């Protein structure tokens, strides 16, 4: 009796699958969108969870670009741009669902992507829908090694950041460095690359390369290790929450060497968490922040007026992503993914905040655009443009 029921169900299932399929399968999400009406740009960014603040910075940057473009008449004969923000929450499963939702909502180009771990699963989803991706923030090497034709990164990669870091270390006369990461992929990328470059180059010795666990308060053991090794400089490649704590505890332990942080720690909160004047003099490898770009003052003022708060990391990159997408759509004269991808590859000299854009064959920035910032009076300012 039980078995018969299962058999019946199985046969029915088979029948359903083979017969009614055609109607269903074609009902799958279409990417292109109609011929008139707004063009949707999808943004899978974290709007909940601990990365939510950065998500807001990115969303606002995108909105600025969209409003700017729409005010000038939109693209392709007056079609306005629309932003579809879906919450990836820095979680792979949710980001995948969000990407699917964006595809179903008719996205033409994806301009989101912050947490590399959450962006990775969205790559094949956008790829199979033929939607090009312009990723403004996520920059793990794994995104590049996938070799998917529709993926473009406009944030300097870990490889480029490491190269910039080493360049500055040599320039600044650093003989020994301690590399500390927070055990996440993006952070480990940078330390691994820096270590590789330093060892190949030979002029900077890697005195220590270790990881810590993010989310804790007490980093006395790694502080101990650093103090016992006495490096000229500490390069911290994790995020600002832990970076601030480590700087605070290092200074309390009497560390007098230099400190440099990677772009994940470039946030005003780093200074606050480090406390007092502990963060003064800390260097940072960073692509660009609104404050460090010449001529961006008016952009910052506009942002402040529009959103009532300061821009933050990746506001400008997100702004650039939208502008680049609009440019590519205009150049391609169509909303078809393949045409836009070709147009993106053909971009030569398009002005981004980080400089003129030309993609490498791997679809990364040919000029990583990393600069060295330094904390002065509690704010990050440009120290060395490293060009």
């Amino acid at each position, binding site marked *: 009796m039980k078995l018969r029921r299962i058999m019946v169900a199985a046969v029915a299932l088979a029948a359903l699958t083979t017969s009614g399929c055609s109607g269903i399968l074609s009902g799958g999400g279409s990417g292109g969108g109609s011929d008139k009406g707004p063009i949707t740009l999808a943004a899978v960014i974290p709007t909940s969870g601990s990365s939510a603040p950065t998500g807001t910075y990115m969303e606002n940057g995108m909105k600025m670009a969209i409003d700017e473009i729409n005010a000038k008449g939109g693209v392709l004969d007056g079609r306005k741009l629309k932003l579809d923000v879906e919450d990836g929450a820095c979680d792979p499963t949710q980001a995948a669902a969000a990407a699917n939702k964006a595809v179903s909502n008719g996205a033409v180009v994806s301009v989101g992507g912050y947490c590399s771990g959450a962006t990775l699963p969205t790559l094949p989803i956008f790829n199979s829908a033929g939607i090009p991706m312009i990723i403004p923030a996520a920059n793990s090497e794994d995104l590049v090694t996938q070799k998917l034709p529709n993926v473009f990164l406009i944030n300097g990669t870990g490889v480029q950041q490491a190269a910039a870091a080493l360049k500055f270390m040599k320039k600044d006369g650093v003989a020994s460095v301690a590399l500390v990461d927070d055990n996440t992929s993006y952070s480990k990328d940078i330390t691994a690359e820096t270590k590789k470059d330093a060892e190949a180059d030979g002029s900077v010795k890697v005195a220590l390369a*270790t990881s810590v666990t993010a989310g804790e308060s007490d980093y006395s053991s790694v502080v101990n290790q650093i103090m016992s090794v006495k490096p000229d400089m500490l390069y911290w490649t994790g995020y600002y929450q832990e970076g601030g704590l480590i700087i605070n505890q290092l200074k309390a332990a009497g560390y007098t060497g230099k400190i440099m942080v990677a772009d994940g720690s470039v946030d005003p909160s780093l200074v606050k968490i480090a406390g007092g004047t502990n963060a003064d003099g800390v260097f940072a490898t960073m692509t660009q922040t609104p404050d460090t770009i010449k001529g961006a003052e008016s952009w910052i003022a506009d942002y402040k007026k529009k959103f009532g708060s300061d821009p933050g990391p990746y506001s400008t990159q997100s702004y650039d992503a939208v502008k680049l997408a609009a440019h590519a759509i205009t150049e391609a004269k169509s909303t078809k993914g393949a045409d836009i991808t070709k147009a993106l590859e053909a971009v030569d000299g398009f002005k981004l905040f980080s400089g003129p854009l030309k993609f490498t064959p791997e679809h990364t920035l040919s000029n990583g655009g990393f600069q060295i910032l330094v904390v002065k009076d509690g704010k990050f300012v440009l120290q060395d443009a490293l060009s």
Partner: protein
Amino acid sequence: MTQLIWNGLFVGSFYALIALGYSMVYGIIKLLNFAHGDIYMLGAFIGFTVLSSFGGITASMSIISLLFVLIISMLLSGAAGVAIERIAYRPLRNSPRLAVLITAVGASFTLEYGVSAIAGPNPRVFPVRLGGNSFDFLGARLSVPQVILMAIAVVLMLGLNMYVQRTSRGRAMRAIALDPKGALLMGINVNAVITWTFFIGSALAGAAGVMAGAYYGKIDFLMGFIIGLKAFTAAVIGGIGNIKGAMLGGLLLGLLEAFGSQVFGGQWRDVFTFAVLILFLTLKPTGLLGERVTERV
């Protein structure tokens, strides 16, 4: 080496304060209050709120203002603990174990995401930080704030121990821990004592939260989760239900973690802690100072 020991002891004193609450509540109603670590977080946020509303205090905190904030925070965290007991645990006093444990998980979630809803998901910086000089002692670098905080923790723990041993309320707690029905028959107001236990345990956790906020400076709504687990480990090491055990367990765990991170690397720290927990529960479930219980552990 001594630096390692000092660091371990310092972190361990936080664990000990929180483990005390765990141990006390377990001893008296045999419940693992899963939400206890989140009371620690709540205490930190209460301290943050109190300090922010009194803005304009100088950067270096004076002892008096620290104590003031500490006391307020302890009172409010204690009240929160009592509230949780009333709402979530008391109705389930006669329910099967499973139900209460699940409720505790729910209470933990509610606290965490409730605070995140009110205060936002970003980490916050304590507006006033403990400053102070460092000095060298036996090869280790100690800072004045560290010594002060350790002192406060020790005072609280000793105070609690005296309370439980000497006062009649404390005796009532011990009586209920031994035999709830018997205690009831002897005229002890079991409900009131249980409420009081929750209050004290939560107050201690709240104190630890404020101290952590003042010392480390950064607080976020998930800080209670992992600390709760570590405090539980500490309580188990020392012997759950045993106050002196909780203190010992906390300090010991701090030391073990310091050495473990040194040997295995920072990223294995939590794995090491949990491995210690599992080892103890497998080999010596009653802990170092625990009494033999007739019930299977």
